[in-house]
Structure formats: structure tokens, C-alpha cells
């Protein structure tokens, strides 16, 4: 599962997004994005399978973004 995550400079999560149609009707949207506010960073993060069962809101509340070798990953806050 790929998530688009916006964090502040310290890695605190501002928002998490999972792209794609949710309902039965097809939107036709091919892609989307967020224009980051000053001081915010956008990360595209492949979330490990073990986190796949956690709701986005629980991830949001419990995790932060850590940058390792230029790659962002989710770690427990």
C-alpha cells in the first residue's frame, strides 16, 4: 500500500492520503496531489504489510515520518 504523507520538518504527520476510487462509481481521476505549505514535506511511502490493517487515522495519530538515506518511512511516534 502506497501512502502520500505530508509532514512538518520534524516528521510529525500533517496528513495521510491513499489515492483511488472508494465507491462503486468511477471518478475518472488519474492522479492527484497536494501543494505543500512552507515547512511541510510530501513523502510517497510504501507501507509495510503489517501496517496495512491499521486505519489511516490511527497511523496518523501513532506514527511519524523518519528520513533514512533520503527515503521516508513510518516509525512509531
Amino acid at each position, binding site marked *: 500500500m502506497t501512502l502520500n504523507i*505530508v509532514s512538518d520538518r520534524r516528521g510529525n*504527520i*500533517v*496528513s*495521510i*492520503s*491513499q*489515492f*483511488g*476510487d*472508494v*465507491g462503486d*462509481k*468511477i*471518478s*475518472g*481521476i*488519474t*492522479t*492527484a*496531489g*497536494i*501543494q505543500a*505549505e512552507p515547512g511541510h514535506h510530501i513523502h510517497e511511502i510504501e507501507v509495510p504489510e503489517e501496517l496495512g490493517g491499521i*486505519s*489511516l*487515522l490511527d*497511523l*496518523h*495519530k501513532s506514527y511519524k515520518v523518519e528520513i533514512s538515506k533520503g527515503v521516508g518511512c513510518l516509525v512509531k511516534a
Partner: protein
Amino acid sequence: MAWTWGTNTLGAGQTQRWWLSWPKDPGIEMIGVQAITSGAEIDFTSPGIQVNSDGSVLYFVTIMNRGSVPAQYHFTGSSRGSWVWGTNTLNAGQTQRWWLSWPGFPGLEIVEALPVTPSCEIDFASAGVQVNTDGSTLYFITVTNRGKYAVEYHFRGSAIC
């Protein structure tokens, strides 16, 4: 399905913020005003939505009487089928400007942010549209979490013409 609801008055120069409540999600709603008093300009915006823990849904509407006399009006609106796209979270008090991309022009899209988390108001405004050289179309939408907690929401929309 189109509807007209309530008969209200508002003094000259006055602004009121309303909430209209549905017992459950009515589907995407487009809400405006039918002015009754002749010559009175009534401005309106529908800034946001809140889902409550009992499943009821509030649409917020702000009304302003720009005329020089008290004005009478109805609320009027329409609900329709819609698509739902993306699952997103946003911190309390934060605003984000999004773009949603279609491969061509999808028609006039009405887009709103539908909260999943109860008791948090999400405000949104569809600011504009852009067509790119490859024919793709971007719709811009600004989303604000007016609640006290992080909120989860979807985008919901419908091509109306």
C-alpha cells in the same frame, strides 16, 4: 433530486451561518438560495460538512444579505449520485490545497470533502480548473479541518454537465 426548504428573512447587511441537518448521508448536495424579495442580492456559500456520531450529516451554509432592505429567501438544493475518491487525513486547524487530475475534460465537476471522522467539520472550496497541453484537466480544491482533532475524509464529486 431537487428540493426547496424553509422560508427565512435576513436584515440588510447581515450575515448568518446556518447548518442544515440530514438524518443520514443524503449524497452529494448542491445548496443555494432562492431569493424571494425582489431587488435584494443574497450571497451564499456552502463551506463545509460535518458527520456526527449518530450518522446525521450537517451541511454548513453562510448567507449574506447585500441589499439595503430585509430579504426573504428559501434554501434550495439538489442531491445526486456521486463518485468517492481517496482516503485522507488532516490535522486540526490545517488547510491543504489539492489538485485532482482527469485525463481529459470530465465536464463540470462539483467536488466536496466528506468527513469520515464524526464531529469534525471539514470546509472546502473548489478554487479553479486548469487544462494542460496534454489535454488533462486539473480541478483545484482547498480543504480545511475546522475540528479539534485529526480527521479522516474522502473526496466526493459529480459531473453535473
